[in-house]
């Protein structure tokens, strides 16, 4: 255990809106709004922030200048840390928290804002054709234009190998929607979903139906990371970062989005290598000690595979694990995505999941797990290297 404890002291977000409904905003303006909200939540003057930690898959063009543009827009007098995680998309949320934690523990920075802003403009929608999409030549000419069919191929193999069933995928979608129905921030707050609704919805790419697939959200989320010593002078109960790490197995290549040549025994997994053991080992805990989980859910099947990857159940048992309401608040053994997740709260590349984990450690979730002491957060499975973290109250 490091001598200096890092923790999350502030959380914030913009309104989460369906794609296209943040007219007039940019990703930089949304990021600034979320950081201001997180600083206000922490009781911290925004000008005290001296570090920015980002992640995603867009460090080209004007986006490469985002740290400096955010700094200028927020009026931060001195920036001492800016990092961007070297992994695509939602694999990097917990890694960005890890980089922020390292920066404050080493003393290079004092208050680091972790931020993700998304605004999916035409031509850059994750779920639609994009001429700039990586690995274009071996996907697009075959009608595999977007993640849904490519991850559907992976999940189909999981179902073939382990007997995972449609009703188990549906349970993930229905459980998270019920959580979103309690969360006023959730895009799907007012829309109920039953298993019958789930099964009656149109296919996107078999075995994935409409409600297996995440939302398209415009908005931003942010966290403030500092040391436990500085946290004592701030407004909120800190969430301690017991462990935050990256990991990837070695034969993955570009994975489902660009290869499909992973070894057979790894194909229908999140490819975390030994990350689970390392993560829980550093935290001094086991998966069974987790009170509440936030698991990246671009598709329902990712949740099932992630539960297996980190040892919440044996390989191949993820489908059976979610049965019987195990992921549901309040009665399930492992309430998961208690704000609704990417399927029903918002799609902010996993940072909104981290925000909800902090709420659970404070005791302020709209689906609060009574007595929750330990929260687990997983970034996107199958995007290598992925990342995860364990927080404590």
């Amino acid at each position: 255990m490091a001598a200096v404890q890092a923790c999350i002291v502030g959380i914030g977000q913009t309104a989460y809106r369906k794609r296209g409904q943040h007219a007039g905003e940019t990703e930089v303006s949304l990021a600034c709004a979320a950081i201001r909200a997180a600083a206000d939540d922490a009781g911290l003057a925004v000008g005290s922030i001296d570090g920015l930690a980002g992640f995603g898959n867009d460090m080209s063009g004007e986006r490469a200048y985002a740290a400096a543009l955010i700094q200028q827009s927020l009026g931060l007098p001195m920036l001492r840390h800016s990092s961007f995680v070297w992994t695509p998309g939602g694999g990097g949320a917990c890694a960005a928290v890890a980089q922020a934690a390292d920066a404050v523990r080493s003393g290079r920075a004092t208050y680091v804002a972790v931020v993700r802003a998304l605004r999916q403009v035409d031509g850059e929608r994750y779920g639609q054709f994009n001429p700039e999409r990586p690995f274009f030549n071996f996907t697009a000419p075959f009608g595999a234009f977007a993640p849904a069919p490519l991850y559907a191929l992976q999940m189909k193999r999981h179902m073939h190998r382990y007997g995972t069933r449609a009703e188990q995928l549906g349970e993930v979608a229905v459980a998270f929607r019920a959580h979103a129905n309690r969360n006023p921030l959730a895009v799907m707050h007012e829309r109920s979903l039953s298993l019958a609704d789930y099964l009656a919805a149109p296919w996107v790419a078999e075995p994935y139906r409409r409600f297996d697939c995440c939302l398209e959200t415009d908005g931003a989320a942010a966290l403030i990371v500092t040391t436990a010593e500085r946290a004592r002078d701030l407004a909120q109960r800190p969430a301690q970062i017991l462990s935050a790490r990256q990991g990837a197995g070695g034969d993955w290549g570009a994975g489902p989005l660009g290869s499909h040549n992973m070894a057979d025994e790894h194909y229908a997994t999140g490819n975390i290598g030994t990350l689970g053991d390392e993560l829980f080992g550093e935290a001094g805990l086991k998966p069974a000690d987790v009170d509440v989980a936030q698991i990246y859910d671009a598709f329902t099947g990712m949740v099932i595979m992630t539960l297996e990857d980190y040892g919440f159940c044996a390989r191949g048992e993820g489908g059976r694990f979610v049965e019987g309401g195990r992921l549901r608040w309040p009665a399930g053994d492992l309430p998961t995505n208690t704000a609704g997740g990417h399927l029903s709260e918002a799609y902010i590349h996993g940072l909104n999941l981290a925000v909800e984990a902090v709420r659970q450690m404070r005791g302020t979730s709209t689906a609060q797990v009574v007595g929750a002491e330990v929260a687990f957060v997983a970034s996107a499975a199958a995007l290598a290297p992925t990342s995860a973290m364990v927080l404590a109250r």
Partner: protein
Amino acid sequence: MLPADVPAPRPGEVDAGFWAACAAHELCFQRCADCARWQHPPAPLCAGCGSPGLGWERATGPARVYSVTVVHAAAHPSVGSALPYVVGVVEFPDCGGVRLISNIEGPAPAIGDELTLVWERAGDQPVPRFRAARANKGASS
């Protein structure tokens, strides 16, 4: 299976050999001159031994369904008239088990079914697609 106005590949330095072979209606994969490992998708170095000595070798042996999905939503206008269409991961057990994302003539085959290669076009570029081999049950169309 898919219309000819589906987006065409744009060959680059690393995969030009694959598409040049396709233009001659030959399906080739990379194979390492040093360790004989097959690999796909194309890369500048062998993932087995790190050698840059990669050449192109014609695929041999059967092609089988490793995984399969039926796509019901058009994420590009060119495929709207083709819905639903089948995308598969096609495995070549005699080529080191390399796998290719491609299309399979409907209805969807079962995992493990044997496939026959057919050539269609994406724009002006011949591309490999597949249909069920005669021996499979229940995939007659």
